[in-house]
């Protein structure tokens, strides 16, 4: 039972990280129907920015809480800036191109960003400082749930609530929903569609940065390639829940996180990534619309 609980909590933690990344995929897909392959790289850049900022501040001898706050902030700002720029360079000129073009452009961007970090930084794994301080809480439960995991779960929950409020009740949220429904109509009604798309990229990237910093300080090391696997898994989660649907992405992420956690715990850890991919292939075969997604009919 203890082992089960440990795996369950581990799965939830994984799931919440996937959710933070998956939201970026699903929001972008909802609005411009593009799989933003470079999203995983945005997450990686967020983690790298946090690492660099934290290291510089640590050398300067800043207090630990200040380091945590500033590193997180830097990661969010830079990831958003990268997300914004990527959209402007690689996707905006292709708004009216055939579907395959922006997809290839996105893959190119992803490869470019990976190698940019590889060349400018290093190909080795870098140890990531544990930004989240170790603290004690409710004694018996702390055996199953480590403090960092608790912080990740809470942060994710808070971020989700904020995102929901943003999308439901603010003006930009309304504009986003309108653009997702029908871009041309939204444009006719005076929504600045380009700005909405940029905002979506910025919000998605900021969420990915939060996820990146949290997971990096949980696992304790990063390299330039972390975005690739995390990106695919988060995408799997988004598809599992039904791409384009925000609650779907969260649900899918938790299902994926738990599946992975139990599968590695009870079956074998060698094939950790295979489970996610196999799950992805299975969903797409049997329920391409995802759990909460609507199935779409194709028109000429």
């Amino acid at each position, binding site marked *: 039972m203890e082992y089960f609980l440990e795996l369950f909590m581990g799965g939830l933690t994984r799931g919440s990280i996937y959710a933070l990344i998956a939201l970026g995929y699903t929001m972008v897909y909802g609005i411009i129907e593009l799989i933003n392959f470079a999203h995983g790289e945005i997450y990686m850049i967020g983690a790298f920015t946090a690492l660099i900022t934290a290291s510089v501040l640590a050398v300067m001898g800043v207090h630990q809480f200040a380091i945590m706050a500033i590193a997180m902030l830097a990661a969010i700002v830079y990831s958003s800036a990268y997300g914004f720029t990527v959209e402007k360079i690689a996707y905006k000129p292709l708004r009216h191109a055939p579907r395959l073009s922006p997809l290839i452009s996105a893959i190119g961007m992803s490869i470019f960003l990976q190698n940019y970090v590889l060349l400018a*930084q290093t190909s080795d794994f870098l140890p990531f400082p544990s930004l989240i301080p170790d603290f004690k809480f409710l004694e018996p439960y702390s055996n199953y749930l480590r403090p960092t995991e608790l912080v990740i779960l809470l942060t994710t929950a808070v971020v989700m609530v904020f995102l929901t409020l943003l999308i439901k009740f603010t003006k930009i949220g309304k504009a986003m929903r309108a653009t997702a429904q029908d871009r041309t109509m939204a444009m006719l009604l005076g929504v600045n569609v380009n700005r909405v798309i940029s905002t979506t990229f910025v919000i998605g990237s900021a969420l990915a940065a939060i996820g990146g910093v949290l997971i990096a300080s949980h696992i304790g090391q990063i390299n330039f390639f972390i975005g690739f696997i995390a990106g695919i898994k988060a995408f799997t989660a988004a*598809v599992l829940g039904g791409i384009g649907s925000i609650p779907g992405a969260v649900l899918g992420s938790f299902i994926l996180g738990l599946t992975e956690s139990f599968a590695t715990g009870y079956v074998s850890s060698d094939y950790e990534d295979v489970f996610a991919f196999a799950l992805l292939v299975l969903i797409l075969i049997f329920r391409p619309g995802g759990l909460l997604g609507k199935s779409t009919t194709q028109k000429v």
Partner: protein
Amino acid sequence: MMTFTEIKKSFLTSLWFMFLTFPIMVIRVNTIEKQVIWRWENMWYVGIGSFLLSFVWRYFLRRKERGNNHANEHIANMSSSIQRIFSRRRYKIPAMVAAAMTVAVFPFVMNSYQTNIMITALMYVMLGLGLNIVVGLAGLLDLGYVAFYAVGAYTYGLLNHHFGIGFWTVLPLGGALGALFGVLLGFPVLRLRGDYLAIVTLGFGEIIRLILENWNEFSYGPSGIAHISKPSLFGIKLSFSGEITYMYFLMIGMVCFTIFVVNRLQNSRIGRAWIALREDEVACQAMGIDKTRTKLTAFALGATWAGMAGVIFAAKTTFINPASFTFMESAMILSIVVLGGMGSIPGVIIAALFLILLPEYLRAFSDYRMLLFGAIMVIMMVFRPQGIIATVRRNYNFKKAEN
């Protein structure tokens, strides 16, 4: 057009990029010794580079927009001008003779190192042409193409290791197994649209690689299979350089065979069906084309070539391990197809030679190879989606009566 606003725009762009690349380009931390290295010179490179590039970027973007406003026909004519020249008899025959001569004397003029590089490049020509069937003709974005390449390589590696079966027996077998895997992958993904397909093929490629890496009893894991025998020539013992020359001509033969087959396929019933499928799936079905069969043949044929290329790869390097079959390899082959022009045979050949040979000869350049590939994919899609040599589309010309 170097107006003040233009310069201001570029200046702002360069400031933005200096800000953007600041933490990753300028700061480098040594986390073990707690040292921070500041590389301020990089900031200037980024600033000046992006300042100049933004002019170029905007210039081309404007040109493209102007082109779009003009008649599209005009562009289509311009883009195929290179092919127009080649299609004329007067240029075609001397060009082909010159190419054949170069190809024939290459291994005797160049040393074995150069020939070896050429063999690798030819292998990519073959892979590019194979992927061209799937992506270029049928419009199915396959990001797991390297999986079939791995299937071919491991077919030869394992059969040779366990049973000592020779290259020539395995070559068709590798192709057939590749095709089988192509169909296996093709079946489940038939219903998926372009972007989902991309992800599933990517996942499939990774699954194959992970299985090869972890199933030690079957594939010998990350340490791979060594001492795979080279292809035989009627049992004649060849010298070291003789072996390379033999390999070179074998590759030339395979490439010619590939070009022949792809060229014939392109104009066949199935080839036309692929192109129709690429342009519009629903309309294509409405015209009575069996979507399932058409898609599956595209997958199977593309995979056959990857399988055969895999067998040749294993025979050439005599050592294989899963590290040769990463996603980056798929991406590289894809960028060859994208750069060359989807569906264009001469384009893919030139792109493969260019992308593989250039980093080999410009050694300083080779670190930046993947960076370049990524950039090429983006730039080509934004400015020239039809590739360096676009395919000439078959079309009927309706001429007005007075002409």
